[in-house]
């Protein structure tokens, strides 16, 4: 597989990663974050760097579950933050969290990625897939069966409609509340609830043929 030049450039072992800080995303009312956003809009690169540290892992997970390949997820995540940095001047805080803007950019980047044909959404069958390229880095177990199950679920989620995927990822992977998910997606809580209900129903249908996975969410 041809290595993307961005990934090739970024691979290295130079410095340590700064620790992520936790924060609240409820209705974007975090004053500290608002100050950071204001500074970033004004052109302060260090303020944007802090925002990058806060949201990079979330966006990466979001993209990874959708595309399924580490290299592509890293490229897309890099493009997301690059676009955000270049257009943060036009960002206007309207009561939604900063992450909702990043998620929107991420969704658009994924659409552009598929349009460019870099990778087709058609999956590789489990038998032919390389387990080392799976999204999940399972540190403690690492057994191949667990990895296959994880990839099966990930592929089932990736087959859902984009808005269903968003709700599943935010609600069950990022463990956001209904309110936080609605704010991140720019929708009402009722709409998110309805999407969640339908997404679970579709996911259940998709995973019905796999007896090893017990469906315990609602």
């Amino acid at each position: 597989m041809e290595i993307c030049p961005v990934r090739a450039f970024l691979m290295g072992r130079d410095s340590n990663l700064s620790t992520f800080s936790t924060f609240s995303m409820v209705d974007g009312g975090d004053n500290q974050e608002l100050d950071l956003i204001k500074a970033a809009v004004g052109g302060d690169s260090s303020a944007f760097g802090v925002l990058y540290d806060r949201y990079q892992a979330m966006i990466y997970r979001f993209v990874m579950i959708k595309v399924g390949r580490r290299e592509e997820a890293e490229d897309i995540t890099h493009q997301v933050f690059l676009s955000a940095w270049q257009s943060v001047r036009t960002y206007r805080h309207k009561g939604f969290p900063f992450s909702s803007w990043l998620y929107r950019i991420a969704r658009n980047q994924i659409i552009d990625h598929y349009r460019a044909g870099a990778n087709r959404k058609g999956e590789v069958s489990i038998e032919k897939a390389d387990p080392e390229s799976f999204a999940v880095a399972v540190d403690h177990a690492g057994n191949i069966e667990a990895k296959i199950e994880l990839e099966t679920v990930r592929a089932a989620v990736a087959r859902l409609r984009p808005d269903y995927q968003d709700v599943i990822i935010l609600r069950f992977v990022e463990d956001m509340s209904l309110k936080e998910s609605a704010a991140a997606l720019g929708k009402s809580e009722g709409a998110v609830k309805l999407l969640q209900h339908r997404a679970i129903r579709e996911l259940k249908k998709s995973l019905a043929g796999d007896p090893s996975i017990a469906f315990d969410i609602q």
Partner: protein
Amino acid sequence: MKLSHIFTQFRRIDPDPHYSEKSKRVILAHPREAMPMRGTSIMVFLRMLETGVALVLAGFFLLLATGSFSGNKYLAPVRYSVIDPSGLQAEAQAIDIQIRLANLDYSEVTSTAPQSTTPEAGVVAHLLSLPVKDASSTASSTASGSVASSTASSTSLSVNDALQALSQ
């Protein structure tokens, strides 16, 4: 494995630390595109031009709409009608219309009319050139009595008298 546990495992998906640091450094070192001032002023100029053209067109159409109002000729600079009211009026006055009643003729009633006929009947009959019935009928005798006395003495009967007699 339970699905909820699998989703929990998904939370462990993290980017490669070295990749993250390099990506951040590259992004922050990337210069942001400055908005060209010239582009901004050109856009402002174009918007003003667009507004001006819209106003001119609106005024032009307003003038066209009021062009049909003839109350004040200064408000109707555009005359698109081919009809000239003043010219038509002059033309109408110039037409010489003279009405004549041609071949209007009436005859005088004479005393030599036969006695069997009533005088007014004779007058009317003569005027209308119709045959006269026998005056011995009682219906016409009383009506003609007074007329007979008035007409017996006169030889000529005026048109007004004839008409009056007819109306009776």
